[in-house]
């Protein structure tokens, strides 16, 4: 199984797309970090000198979830688009093993995206806190939890991408659906129906970060958010497996 995961990771890292997505993800994180640091304490933005502000700051590490989603999508749709799925299944005819390896590879990619974002968050947050005269001791258990949440959410979104890609197989369609969901539909649902929004993947991720909802309605407790994320991952993994295993490859 390890060698199959290694093969899937090779697929990801032997194309340039992954670096583009990582750059975009870090770019979004950087914008969020700089904005929060500059606006600290102004216009309702919690000051970075307080625990809430610090949590918000570090949650920016997970801004680029959608780019992890795209990588997950490509790992499946790319196989259909370029018809490499044939080779994949010729080498590993037991397809459930291929799907498992892809899921694991998505988790690893999510981990890398998350860690890269967290590293960037530290690089901006430490000077920001020092400049504002805040104590670095604010970076404590809360921040650790946010970081764990970022990594978990990144992995989940990559897996979600894989599942959507397995269902649709069309690369463009899968990416449009994913980006549309994250940036449009989910945001609208969270804003208009906060009681629904907190049950969505985005809401669950926010719950794990422990950031307050901009609309006042509380998210789930952190453990609830984490459980929900794992649940989503399991459902999507099942979707990815079932759709991929039965299909004829013609």
């Amino acid at each position: 199984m390890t060698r199959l995961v290694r093969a899937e990771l090779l697929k990801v890292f032997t194309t340039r797309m992954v670096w583009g997505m990582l750059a975009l993800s870090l770019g979004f994180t950087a914008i969020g970090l700089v904005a929060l640091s500059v606006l600290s304490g102004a216009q309702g933005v919690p000051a970075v000198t307080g625990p809430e502000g610090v949590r918000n700051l570090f949650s920016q590490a997970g801004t680029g979830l959608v780019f992890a989603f795209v990588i997950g999508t490509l790992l499946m749709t790319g196989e259909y688009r370029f018809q490499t799925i044939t080779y994949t299944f010729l080498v590993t005819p037991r397809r459930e093993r291929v799907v498992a390896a892809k899921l694991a590879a998505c988790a690893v990619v999510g981990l890398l995206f998350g860690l890269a974002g967290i590293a960037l968050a530290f690089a901006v947050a430490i000077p920001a806190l020092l400049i504002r005269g805040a104590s670095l001791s604010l970076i404590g258990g809360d921040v650790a939890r946010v970081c764990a949440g970022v990594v978990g959410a990144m992995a989940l979104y990559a897996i979600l991408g894989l599942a959507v890609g397995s269902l649709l197989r069309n690369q463009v369609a899968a990416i449009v659906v994913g980006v549309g969901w994250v940036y449009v539909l989910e945001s609208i649902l969270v804003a208009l129906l906060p009681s629904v929004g907190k049950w969505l993947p985005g809401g669950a991720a926010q719950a794990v970060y422990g950031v307050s909802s901009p609309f006042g309605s509380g998210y789930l407790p952190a453990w609830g958010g984490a459980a929900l994320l794992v649940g989503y991952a399991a459902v999507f993994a099942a979707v990815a497996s079932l759709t991929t295993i039965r299909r004829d490859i013609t």
Partner: protein
Amino acid sequence: MPAIEIRNLSKSFGAVRAVDDVSFTVEAGTVTGYLGPNGAGKTTTLRSLLGLVAPDSGEALVNGRRYADLARPVCEVGAVLEATNFHPGRTARDHLRVLCAAAGLPEARAEQTLGQVGLADVARKRVAGFSLGMRQRLALATALLGEPRILILDEPANGLDPGGIQWLRGFLRFLADDQGCAVLVSSHVLAEVEQTVDDVVIIAGGRMVREGTLAELTSAGDRGVRVAGAGVERLRARLEAAGATVESPQDGVLLVHGAPPETVGQAALDERVVLSELVRERSDLEAVFMELTAAPGGPPPPPVAGAVTGAPGSAS
């Protein structure tokens, strides 16, 4: 145990019966041509054999087992399939490295197989810049990674230039003759395989229409002995006396049925006629193929143009 065994295989896609009760075997050390017009069911058969398509009924076995049950499939079976391609942004070598990683083969195999198919120089180039022929060679390299003893190739000559086709013929013969591989190669262009294959399976409309050795198939279409020369008309009486029927398709040419070439030669010697040509006319595979696969009720087959002379398989 045959290397490849297909038993009563059937598969439908919706209302279309793509493969209908097909059975044949391929033995080690032979090249079998799997021939049929486009849409005859060749690809579906081969993909069933490789576990990519689930058959409705029947079995497709390699080394006596289903492909999915092989412990290390790429080390037993190599495949070059149509409708298969490569990620354009990945280099040739990286494609093979990915497959080596998944199959647990040493990465050195990537370089070795690229050398075998003549792509060593472009190993680190992105596939986006590859011609169809180069992609076809890369596909062949993927099939050879695990040094399999069974090779399954679906229309491998597509996109190859004449030199490439020549090379492929030699390569397939080398695999069968020197390496003892069982090779199953499909094609709808008969000239491509006619000089390479030992056995032939012909399929049309999903059903098998003929199976046999190339020699059996082409001798079934024996078209008599063709003899040409200025005074060749003088042979007619002598040959008809020997029980042959003689036609004269054009001036100075006789087509003799029912007499071996020796009899015709003897007649020429006895009559002291100078010959410019004396050959046994055989229908080539193309003609047999057209006869066998012509759809009933379809358009009439075109006239057979210039049946190839000489023993099949003599050129390479």
